[in-house]
């Protein structure tokens, strides 16, 4: 099947006799009043009324799940996980499901916009591209491309383009990156991104790693978690202990949830190391210097600095001793501090001490095509970018997949600094905050209209390269373009010899895949067949993945954690900007399904809220629904209070994602953005923003509004089951075990 056919296959010529069923239950239609259009040339699998599934890749988060989209009469209707993908294994999270709403979003950009006299006005693509050519002519180092995390051929094209322009400024920015974790893993295990074998662990001790919701690869981890929890005669039920200042969804599923003081995770971990090293079989896993270094983390210090009682500490210790192999995870709440990487390293040291490395901590395979390997973002990129902007070093700036005007902390003043760049181009789907600041806004194809390749950062099994293919024709064929196509066009202007052989991005991808055919498992001999196979499966399995090597060096770790910071009497509370899986860094806040789907823990919809512990609320005289001013040294926002017990009492939390000033009808003016009041605190070894290090105080206003949530409305009552058997709970030692299947 050649490429032209492939496109035609999706050709939408008419919706056949199954028209939209919007009319609901009206009167029977009369004959001859409606028309029924037929295909002039039907595609091979196109039968009216029958859905056909096409494979592609979900692009809503970096986990990169393979998906299958149900296409009927040329329309994409529903996405499912692809069973052939090692990550999703046929499952798909809510965020991924909502991808279709990005595609059909009523607020999508439909044509290029150029700023004329301060206003964005429609412009043709030709004009836009020639303008870009003109502005980038001698850009050199005054050019910068700020993107979100990238992988696959789009990354290759972006990097090539930046290079062609003679610039080194490709900034990959990801607000939710775990750079500190990677650095710590590098130090402890010798690899930055180890696999965690959740299903194989008998105990998981997680310090804020929300692996069921938004940590690295949630769909994959959820499936693993199911295995971890299952108990039968051959396998005990895994135990999950979660220590974090604000309860995450994973914490809500824990057997023991520990409200640990923010930033003291490392102390708790080293306290455990200290205690565990009393056992000879643990002590042999680390050099004596470690035992020496952790001696100062005795029970008294742990008790003093972490706020965790000795009894709980003892229970955790006993569980760690009893259950092996275990798995200790470090998550954002441990890493978002000045000493974040140190915290993470201390936590990871536990895995070394417990002998988990090699059992539940394993090495992933190397990605055979380094130029396609994921460029995981970080926040230091944004800081560098912002600095360059503020110093006037950047003249022409491109944006793609990142919305720094919304996600950058207020103190960085990104909006102001952007004014110093003369020409800003946003490749966007919506008029988001950054697009509103741009001089040229170029509308992109939705993920379901575009081609692409993706390499997931977290590869659970070997290496898979995921194919992204259009699941339907462009909704706005004249308006939107693929970023790949645009970059190719721009590259052709500079390097015609290199890029002219590729008529479009599709051809580029196809030839790249075919060229490297030998690297993949079960590749068909015929090129066209191989390509057809690739698209129908949606994944390419690397034939002989080469594993990375784990190299432990616990002796070299700096285990001297700083003393807890002085309590600030003026700003007594810690602010957690919590992450909602459905919104990530706020880029999905304009999807009505996700706005309407309750936050799992608070059940609040369509807005933001301030989570505050009932005890703390009592102290501040705050009741549910009160509008509270949250004041940090860097700013003030107003949020609605929600009394939430799953907090360390000196911590308050506001979810990230809402509070947009632009981005369409579903996101604009919904909720508040806690990022705006973050303090300028940075992780010391990576230079990353320390997201969990902001201190705040509260001021109650006179305003009180109903909290819009799904749980029943009963004034002053925490939602319980009223002595009815709704969710029953059984102690783990009481459950009857059935034979293994």
């Amino acid at each position, binding site marked *: 099947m050649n490429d032209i056919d492939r496109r035609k296959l999706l050709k939408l010529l008419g919706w056949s006799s199954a028209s939209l069923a919007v009319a609901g*239950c009206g009167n029977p239609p009369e004959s001859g009043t409606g028309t029924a259009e037929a295909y002039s040339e039907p595609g091979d699998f196109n039968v009216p009324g029958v859905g056909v599934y096409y494979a592609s890749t979900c692009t809503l988060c970096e986990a990169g799940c393979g998906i299958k989209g149900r296409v009927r009469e040329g329309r994409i209707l529903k996405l499912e996980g692809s069973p052939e993908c090692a990550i999703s294994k046929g499952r798909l999270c809510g965020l991924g499901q909502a991808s279709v709403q990005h595609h059909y979003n009523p607020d999508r950009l439909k044509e290029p916009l150029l700023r004329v006299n301060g206003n964005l006005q429609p412009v043709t693509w030709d004009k836009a591209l020639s303008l870009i050519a003109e502005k980038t002519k001698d850009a050199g180092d005054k050019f910068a491309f700020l993107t979100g995390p990238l992988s696959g051929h789009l990354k290759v094209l972006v990097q090539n383009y930046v290079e062609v322009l003679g610039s080194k400024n490709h900034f990959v920015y990801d607000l939710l990156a775990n750079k500190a974790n990677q650095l710590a893993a590098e130090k402890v295990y010798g690899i930055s991104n180890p696999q965690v074998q959740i299903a194989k662990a008998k105990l998981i001790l997680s310090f804020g790693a929300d692996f069921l919701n938004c940590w690295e690869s949630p769909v994959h981890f959820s499936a693993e978690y199911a295995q971890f929890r299952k108990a039968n005669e051959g396998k005990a039920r895994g135990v999950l202990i979660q220590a974090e200042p604000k309860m995450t969804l994973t914490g809500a599923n824990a057997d023991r949830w520990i409200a640990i003081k923010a930033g003291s995770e490392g102390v708790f971990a080293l306290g455990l190391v200290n205690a565990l090293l009393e056992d000879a079989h643990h002590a042999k896993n680390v050099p004596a210097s470690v035992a020496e270094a952790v001696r100062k983390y005795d029970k008294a210090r742990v008790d003093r600095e972490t706020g965790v009682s000795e009894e709980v500490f003892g229970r955790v210790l006993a569980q760690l001793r009893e259950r092996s192999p275990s798995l200790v995870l470090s998550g954002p709440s441990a890493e978002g501090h000045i000493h974040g990487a140190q915290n993470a390293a201390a936590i990871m040291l536990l895995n070394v001490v417990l002998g988990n490395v090699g059992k539940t901590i394993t090495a992933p395979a190397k990605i055979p095509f380094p130029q396609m390997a994921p460029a995981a973002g970080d926040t230091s990129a944004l800081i560098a970018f912002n600095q360059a902007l503020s110093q006037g070093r950047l003249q022409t700036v491109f944006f793609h997949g990142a919305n720094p005007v919304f996600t950058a902390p207020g103190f960085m003043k990104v909006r102001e600094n952007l004014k110093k760049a003369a020409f800003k181009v946003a490749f966007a789907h919506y008029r988001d905050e950054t697009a509103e600041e741009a001089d040229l806004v170029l509308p992109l194809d939705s993920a379901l209209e575009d081609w692409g390749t993706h390499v997931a950062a977290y590869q659970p099994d070997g290496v898979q390269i995921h194919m992204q293919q259009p699941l339907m024709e462009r909704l706005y064929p004249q308006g939107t373009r693929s970023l790949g196509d645009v970059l190719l066009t721009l590259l052709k202007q500079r390097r015609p010899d290199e890029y002219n052989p590729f008529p479009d991005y599709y051809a580029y991808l196809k030839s790249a895949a075919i060229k490297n055919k030998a690297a993949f498992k079960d590749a068909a001999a015929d090129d066209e067949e191989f390509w057809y196979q690739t698209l129908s499966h949606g994944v390419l399995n690397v034939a002989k993945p080469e594993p990375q090597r784990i190299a432990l060096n616990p002796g070299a770790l700096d285990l001297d954690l700083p003393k807890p910071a002085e309590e600030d009497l003026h700003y007594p509370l810690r602010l957690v900007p919590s992450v909602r899986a459905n919104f990530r860094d706020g880029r999905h806040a304009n999807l009505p399904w996700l706005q309407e789907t309750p936050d799992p823990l608070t059940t609040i919809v369509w807005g933001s809220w301030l989570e505050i512990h009932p005890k703390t609320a009592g102290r501040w005289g705050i009741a549910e629904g009160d509008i509270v001013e949250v004041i940090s040294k860097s700013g003030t926002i107003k949020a609605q209070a929600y009394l939430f017990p799953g907090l360390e009492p000196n911590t308050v939390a506001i979810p990230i994602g809402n509070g947009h000033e632009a981005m369409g009808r579903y996101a604009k003016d919904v909720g508040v953005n806690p990022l705006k009041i973050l303090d300028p605190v940075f992780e010391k070894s990576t230079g990353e923003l320390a997201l969990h290090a902001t201190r705040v105080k509260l001021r109650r206003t006179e305003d009180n509004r*109903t909290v819009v949530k799904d*749980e*029943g*409305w*009963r*004034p002053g009552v925490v*939602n*319980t*089951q*009223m*002595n*009815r058997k*709704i969710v029953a709970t059984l102690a783990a030692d009481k459950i009857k075990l059935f034979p293994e299947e």
Partner: protein
Amino acid sequence: MPDFTKGEEKDIRDTIAWAQINGDVLRSLSKPRFAFWALFTFALCLFSIGVACEVYQWRRGLGVANFDNPHVWGLYISTFIFWIGMSHSGTLLSAILHIIHADWRKPIYRFAEAMTTFSLMTAGLFVLIHLGRLWKFYYSLPYPSERMLWPNFQSPLLWDAIAIFTYLTSSILFLYVGAIPDFAICRDNATGWRKHFYSMLSLGWMGTDRQWRSFRVTYLTIACFLIPLAVSVHSIVASDFAMSQQPGWHVTSFPPYFVAGALYSGCAAIITLFIVLRYTFRFEEYMTMPILDKVGRLTFAIAMVWTYLNFVEYASVWYGDDMYAKDLLIQKATGPYSPFWWGMNFCGSVVPLLLLSKSVRGSPTAMMIVSLLLNLGMWLERWMIVAPTFSHGYYPWTMDHDQWPGFVQWGIVLGSFGWFGLLFMLFCKLVPSVSMYEVKEMVYHRTLAQRHAREA
């Protein structure tokens, strides 16, 4: 002003002349005075509010009335039961008292019977207003349709529809048949269009023996037919709740409880209208204080039956094993609905104790206030049956104590009073609201009785 507190006061003056009866009653049909128009306009305003609300609700959906899940029913259903209940007193007075020959009912049964008919018509409206797709209401009627579908005969709502329809038809028939001799009197005294109107209505009534005989038999037959119907109608309305499975509704004693409540609210409404008519049309000769006294006693008796049944329900819940129902009962008494719940108990069970006092029964003002309170209590009762179960049902997640009926619901409830008022006022001006021939009968019987006594 005669002293009515003395027991020997008569229900009706037996020396009253027949011509005076005709004159007094027909005067009430004469050209309305300003006060009538003022009241009529007021009722029309209320009714218009209701219509406006209904139009709005029809166009936008029931959401504008501030229903939600799980509060799917609200004031429409409670007010529906209220009006159904209201209809029972007419039957009580006209049919039950008729067959047991309590002749003091005679001057007041006509308007009570009209009240029955109109409140049924109001109640029927609520069934329709309540529907989400009012335009498809005919799906619930059992008729052989092209779709070869029948309604669900298991559903109490269907029984409701049938029972109400039957009851309404019978009530109209009863009201009409009973008024034929009076229409003839009107015909004989009317001029102009009224003459035609009453000629038509009186069906050629000449007052012959044969006509009287047929009339008596017909009237008695319908009366006998109406009594079980009245009992069944409210039992069936009770079944809407008792047949369901919800806490607070699934109560065996609901049918008698509802019937008692219905008679109760009906009697209270009779007292109200009695006093209103007595003063508007100067019917002091017919709607006499001794009759009011009797109605008051009857109301008290029914109030006590109702109170008893109410306590039976509480007790059976309290001592029973149904934790959901008990939870709900506690909620009613302590939760956000508690003011209304206690208000209902106070108005329904404590206020009627006032009726024990002769001086209260003898004072029209006091009776008016008491009757309005009783009506309020009875309306609250219906609301307290319907609403709290939704706020505090089986399922804890959906418990919602914050729901308050929206203005559209209140508007339509008000509108229903306007509608009822309009109908009743039209009735007062078109149909003699005191049965002339029966009052004459009553006077005649009294005279006869006195003559017999004298002769003995």
